[in-house]
C-alpha cells in the first residue's frame, strides 16, 4: 500500500548490520505472474553504499510490507498536494498513482538539496506531466531556489477562498515536515506526514523509532513507533519539540 516500507539489506553481508527502511516505490506483476517491487534510494551512507554494490542477480534480505499507509480516501472530492523531500519522495509515487486512479486532482512539490536529489523526478514527470510538478532545490540548480515548502505555501495562499480545502501528503526529512506542519496548521488544511526515523528493527520491538504524538498523558504527548504506528501520521497529531 502507498506509504508502506520494507527493511532491506544485501544477503550475507556482515556490515552494516542493520537493515535500511525503504518505501515501496513501484510494484507490479511480471507476465509470468511473479510479483516484483522496485525501491529507489539515494547513496548516502554505509547501508545504501552496500546496496549500490549489488549486481543483477544478487539477493537481498527483505522484511515487509511494514507500517501503515497514506489514507487516500482523505482526498475524495479534494485536490491532493504531494510534498516530497530528498529520499522521502519515493514514498509518494505509489500514492500518486493510486490517487490518479481514483480520479483525484493532484499536484506534486518536489524538493532536494540539488537537482540530483529530486528522487524519482523523471518517473513523476511521466506519471503526472511537468505542469503539475513544482520543484525547488536548495542551490537553485532545478526549479525554485530554496525549500520546497515555499511553493507549497504560496500555492495554498493563492487558492480561491471558496475552493474546497486540499489535503496534503508529505514525506521527507524532519525539518521539511516540521515546516509543512506549520504551513498546513496555519492554512487549516489536513495533512498526512510520513516520517523518517532511525530504525533498528522496523517491526515494533526495539522502540528505537519513537516519535512524540499528542495525547492525554501528563506531558501532553507519548512516544509512538514510526515503524508500526506510522510511518504516516496526521500532522496535527504530532508533537514537535520546540
Amino acid at each position, binding site marked *: 500500500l502507498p506509504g508502506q516500507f520494507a527493511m532491506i*539489506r544485501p544477503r550475507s553481508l556482515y*556490515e552494516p*548490520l542493520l537493515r535500511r527502511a525503504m518505501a515501496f516505490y513501484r510494484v507490479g506483476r511480471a507476465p509470468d505472474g511473479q510479483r516484483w517491487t522496485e525501491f529507489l534510494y539515494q547513496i548516502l551512507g554505509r547501508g545504501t553504499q552496500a546496496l549500490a554494490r549489488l549486481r543483477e542477480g544478487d539477493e537481498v534480505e527483505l522484511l515487509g510490507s511494514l507500517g501503515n499507509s497514506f489514507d487516500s480516501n482523505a482526498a475524495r472530492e479534494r485536490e491532493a498536494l504531494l510534498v516530497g523531500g530528498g529520499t522521502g519522495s519515493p514514498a509518494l509515487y505509489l500514492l500518486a498513482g493510486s490517487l490518479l486512479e481514483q480520479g483525484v486532482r493532484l499536484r506534486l512539490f518536489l524538493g532536494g538539496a540539488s537537482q540530483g536529489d529530486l528522487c524519482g523526478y523523471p518517473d513523476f514527470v511521466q506519471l503526472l506531466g511537468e505542469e503539475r510538478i513544482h520543484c525547488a532545490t536548495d542551490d537553485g540548480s532545478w526549479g525554485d531556489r530554496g525549500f520546497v515548502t515555499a511553493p507549497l505555501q504560496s500555492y495554498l495562499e493563492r487558492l480561491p477562498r471558496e475552493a474546497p480545502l486540499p489535503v496534503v501528503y508529505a514525506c521527507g526529512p524532519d525539518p521539511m515536515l516540521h515546516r509543512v506542519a506549520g504551513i498546513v496548521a496555519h492554512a487549516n488544511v489536513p495533512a498526512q506526514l510520513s516520517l523518517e526515523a532511525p530504525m*533498528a*528493527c522496523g*517491526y515494533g520491538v526495539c522502540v528505537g523509532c519513537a516519535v512524540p504524538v499528542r495525547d492525554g498523558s501528563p506531558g501532553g504527548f507519548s512516544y509512538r513507533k514510526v515503524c*508500526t504506528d506510522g510511518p504516516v501520521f496526521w500532522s496535527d497529531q504530532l508533537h514537535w519539540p520546540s
Partner: protein
Amino acid sequence: MNPLPENPLAIEITGTSFANPVWTASGTCGYGLDMAELIDLDRLGAICTKGLSARPLPGNAPWRIVETHGGMLNAIGLQNIGARAFVEEKLPQLRRYQARIVPNVFGYTIEEYLEAIEILETGEGISAYELNISCPNVKAGGESFANDPRQAAAVTETVRRATRRPVIVKLSPNVTSIAEAAIAVEAAGADALSLINTAVGMSIDIETRKPRLANVTGGLSGPAIKPIALRCVFQAARAVRLPLIGIGGIATVEDALEFLIAGASAVQVGTANFYDPTASMKIVDGLASYCQTHRLSSIRDLIGTIDLS
C-alpha cells in the same frame, strides 16, 4: 536404544525446564507478541520481556538508536507499559505459546523493584524474573546498582524474599570485576545470572557536534561486544556455581556454542533479532543438528566444557 528419545536441547535452570537454551533478550523482542508473526514462539526456550517497572514510563526523546561498526547504541530510556498493563494485556496472550515467559524487571529504587515484582506476582504463567540492575539508583547518587556489588546484592536479596519464582540477576559489563559482582549476587540469593547487559558507549555527530543520542550516552550491543560478553561468562563461570545465561552479540549457532562451551546453560539473542528476525530459530535448529553431528545426547553435555589444557 532409548524408546522415548529425550529432547536433546532441553535444559533446566533452578528446577525449571526449558525446551531449549535459546531465549530472546530483553528489549529486543518487545513483549514477545510482536515476534509471533515472524518466528514460532512455541520453539523458543523463553522470552525475556522489555524491562518492566511498577509504573509505565515514557522513555527518552529521539534519537534513541545509532548504528556503529558491528553493533548499535541504544538509549530507549526504559519505555514500557508498566507491570500492571503487562499482566493484564500481554500476559494472557503470551501464555498461549510454549515459550517460557521471563519478565525483565527494573526500578530506580529498591522499593520500585519490589513494587514491580508484587504486581507481576499477581500474573500467572511467569517462569522466572530477570532483574536489570544496570539502571541508575536514584537513592545512591544515580550510580547504577550494578556498579556497586553491595547495591546489586541488596536488590537481589529484597526481590528474592518477595517471590518463590526463580530470580535471574542480569549483570553489567561496565565493572572492574564481573567475578566480584557475580559472587555478591550469588551470596544474596540469586538463582541464576544472565550476562551481559550493554556496554556504555557514545557517538557524536561531527557536523552538529551534538551527541547522536538525545541521552548523550547509550548501551552498545551486537557482535561488536561478543568477545567481551564471552569473557564475562567465562569469568563468572569460574567465580560462582550458579547457572549462567549468556548474552551479547549472539547471532549464529556458532556464537551460541561458544557461550555454552564457556559455561552458559542458555543464551539470549538480542540485537540479532533486529537485523535477522529468525536468528533465534536458526540457532535452535543449528543446536539440534550440532547435537546430531557431534553425537551429543544432550546439549547439557556441552556446557562449560572449555578445554584449558
